[in-house]
């Protein structure tokens, strides 16, 4: 996997560069930014994140389990306490709710990890420490013959540094 990474100091410069690169159709583009910005939102893609699916499924599973286990246990060994019905759904709603939240949120995290490809052990190519501090970055994955064009475009839009990675 090889390509070009460009380091930008200014936000608007980055935005311009990305638009230009998209026109160039050099290859997959990825943007690095110290903080999420509206300006960069949806430049690359407009598909909404699918994390919410994990959340939904996890929450439903939790709620179901939360009802099932106490009811199963009550019927498994029926003992009367306080003259109340052996399985009574009202108190079990609380268990159900708590498990919905628990499993739902854990599923969300799992969703984030899976969709966002974390955790990853190795810093893959095309990353620069400055991206987490103050600078914006653009990574274009492209074959060697296109690298010249990409580099030129980035420089033109004010990249402070452009380097090829392989």
């Amino acid at each position, binding site marked *: 996997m090889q390509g070009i990474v460009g380091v930008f100091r200014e936000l608007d410069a980055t935005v311009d560069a990305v638009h230009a690169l998209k026109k160039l159709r050099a290859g997959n583009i990825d943007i690095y930014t110290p903080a999420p910005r509206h300006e960069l939102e949806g430049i690359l893609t407009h598909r909404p994140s699918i994390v919410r699916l994990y959340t939904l499924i996890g929450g439903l599973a939790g709620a179901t389990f939360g009802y099932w286990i106490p009811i199963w246990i*009550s*019927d498994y060994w*029926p*003992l*009367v*306490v*306080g*003259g*109340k*019905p*052996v*399985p*009574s759904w009202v108190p079990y709603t609380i268990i159900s709710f708590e498990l919905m939240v628990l499993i739902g949120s854990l599923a969300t995290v799992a969703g984030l990890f899976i969709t966002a490809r974390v955790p990853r052990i190795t810093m893959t190519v095309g990353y620069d420490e400055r991206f987490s501090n103050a600078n914006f970055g653009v990574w274009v994955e492209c074959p060697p013959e296109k690298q010249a064009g990409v580099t030129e475009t980035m420089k033109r839009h004010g990249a402070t540094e452009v380097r090829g990675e392989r």
Partner: protein
Amino acid sequence: MSENSTPSGVRRREFLKVLGAGGVATAAIGCSSDRVEKLIPYLNHPDETVPMVSNYYASTCRECSAGCGVLLETRDGRTFKLEGNPDHPLNRGALCARGQAAVQGLYNPDRYRSPMVRNRSGQLVAATWDQALKLMEQKLGEVQKGGRAGSTLFLNRHESGSFPAFLDEWLAANGMPAHLSVDPLADNAVIAANRQSYGVSWPWLAFSAARLIVSIGADFLDTWGANVPQQLEFADARARLADAPRFVYVGPRRSLTGCNADQWIACRPGSELAIANALLGKGSVNDAATASDVPVATLQALKTELTGARPALVLSGVAGSDAMELALAVNELNRQLGAVGTTVQPDRAITSFDGIATDADVIAAVEAMRAGQVPLLMIRGVNPVFTSPKAAAVVDALKKVPFKVSFSSYPDETSELCDLILPDHHAIESWGDAQPMANVIAVQQPGMAPVYDTRQTADVLITLAKANAGIAAKFAAPNYMRWLIDRYPGGTSAFTLALEKGVGTGAVAASTAPRRATAIPKTAAPIAQTAGDLFLVVYPSCSLGDGSGANKPWLQEFPDPVTKICWQSWVEINQQTAVKLGVDTGDILRVETAQGAVEAPAYVFMGIQKDTVAMAFGLGHTAYGRYAAGVGVNPGDVLPVGFDAKSGSFAWTATRAKVTKTGAYTPIVTTEGSARQHGRGIAQALTVRELADLAAGRVTEHAEAMPGMPNTEYLPGLRSPMAADAQGVVSSNIKHKEQGMYSPDHWSGMAKRRWAMTVDLARCTGCQACVTACYAENNIPTVAAPYQESHTAFLHGVAGGNILKGREMNWIRLERYWEGGEDGGDFEARFVPMLCQHCGNAPCEPVCPVYATYHSPDGLNVQVYNRCVGTRYCSNNCPYKVRYFNWFGYGEPARPQYAWPERLSWQLNPDVTVRGKGVMEKCSFCVQRIREAEHRAKAEGRELRPDEFTTSCAQACPSRAITFGDAADNDWTVAKLALDKRGYHVFQEQLNTFPAVVYLKKVNHPAPAAPAGV
């Protein structure tokens, strides 16, 4: 363990301690022990015992002179519980708290393990029986050679039966005078008066025949006379409800007996005779009124009421300087009121008190010692150093005796001064008999082999006699048991027969030895003439008796039925007087007389006459073991040595005292929270009139109805709501309840049972025998002994610290609520036994996170100790507050709070788990007894018989107030009682808990003139 086998079977009680197999269950809950246990079989199997199955040996209780019949529940060689003997004419199956506690005397950790001899350096050191007996023989020989045998002394704890005769025979054979039979609790004046009036020492008192009972200081429910039979009779009388006798109590202090009275007339001490004479017509009412500080109208009303009521029953039990005169006056009064033969029955006399030496005799003997006339003193079972007033200087007198032999089982104040201790068996280890009534012999047999290396005194005497060639022939019997059998009317066969039931017919050999005639050493000055600003009344504690109960933790932790104070001495003082002195409850008072002073915290009490202070006798031991020593003070220290001139009985109330506030303070160790029920209807009562309305179907709105609460109709009986609940009909979701064992047609049939209890407050006298019975049956630990508090700084290592924190463990407790009396006038005491109500809708159950408490299909609210993790939520949610928590490792020998130091642990009931620390416990309706009965029925292939068994509290109750059984089955008594019109549930209207305990309202008998609704 005697080797010879005899027809009456000593050998069958020969045992080896069985570890594991039916051993004592003293495991910490929840952790299984890792040690390899051994299974130790018998060497030779005793014929009619079965392991883990109890044998019941009929015997006689020796805790007081009355001599009730007991059954010794014995299993695997351990006697662990005393129950009343139903065949015994005195107690008819009931047993008082002191009787219950006898096992704690048997296994008392402070008992003498072996004979003790005083060595050169003056220490008492352990010795073998051979050494001890040799010494004894030698001393006897010296005395006889010296020709001084005639002036030796033998003080013996009074007991009826053959032993006095045997003893006198032995003494006579040794050329010694007859023994003194001592009972500090005996009312010598009344006995003497009865002998004079009726020719018997204690006529049968038939309360139920009376229409009016007047007691002038006679505490027949506490310690006066044979209290168990008296209580049975009294309760039967009160159970006649509408036509029950009204009960008026006259006296300076409202004792437990007084608390059971419908009316209390507070008189000055010493004025009782005047009142009696006024009633008798010998004296004027006005004089009596002035003397006693009682309104003339009250006395007049009493007099008219008394003359109107035939037959009435008048009793007197005042230990004053004119006691016998008073007793005679009362007997005369009874004669005039036609009581003799109806309510006072000399022909059914109780003979237990025959032959008691007067207190004067004892003091005379002490004086003889002081004069140095006594070469040899033998003491068995009495403790004159403690029971006589300090002023009698018994200690100095004893020092004058060259050689003193004690047969005491415990190290007490007296035995510690003796030179030789030949420890006696406990009554449960001994043979003997008693003569409770004419033509009734009650046998006494051992329940088990001796716990320690002790010997029965009678056997020791026989051994000594055999050693003396001169008299050996007279005592040919190998041992005392044989001696008894030889003299038993009917011989061996009759004796063996009597052993079965515990009672036989006939009369035992009475002592023929001439009683020594003694002059009264010193007559007490009339109390009114003594110095001091307040009258001092000293009364024997109804739990500790003459102090002999003080080494039994059950009796120490047993709250005084009236004041609810335990592990502590206190001074009762009237609130008006308290205000005058600026005294509040807990302020330490100094009670000072010519003889000395004691200091104890004040207990402000409206049940005491306003010129009087009162103290209980029985505490303040300086020796007598870890439970007694140093607990409380002994009011005997301030009493003068004075007697009633006629009877020679000691005048307990003979002095006035100077009462001052020391400024120090100590909290009162009481189990009482608030003494008022704040209209919450816990202990409810009816007047006779309201009862009539109720019977006539006119429902009365009783005063205890909760203000602001829907006053729902009382639910009749238990079957409809309760058993139905166990079957799952009451609860909302029937479908689920019909599964499993809760379905009404479940094969186990369990859901058809509903264990329930009724408590008749009209019968209950608040004596608390049930409390001790529960301690005995359910292995309940005592929590407040001094040594149990020594390791927790904030409890200060003083007795009662844990009680102050409210940590007592009484599964059943007696709540005593005052009604009225805020204005300083007369008031009412209501007793209500509070125990787990085994609610059908128990609030404690749904909050337990681990099913440690749940509702069993037969209607029990079960507590599973080994499942409990100790969140204590159940107790928070229990409206009755009847759940108790193991704050310390009371059941763990390794902990400083261990409640059963060797060998008290032998008293533990093998059927009941000993709870470890950190678990909740509570009344189980004696589930172990239920299961045992069910197993027995199953083994015999039958259903449970109605009233086949009962709980420990119900069994012991001397008032027969508690009834237990299956409320879902009409054949059980409880099912009928539960439907009684007087019945009510506590808090049912407010909390809808459907308790399984039904209380039957108390019935009050207001004075004829008084308005309804006391």
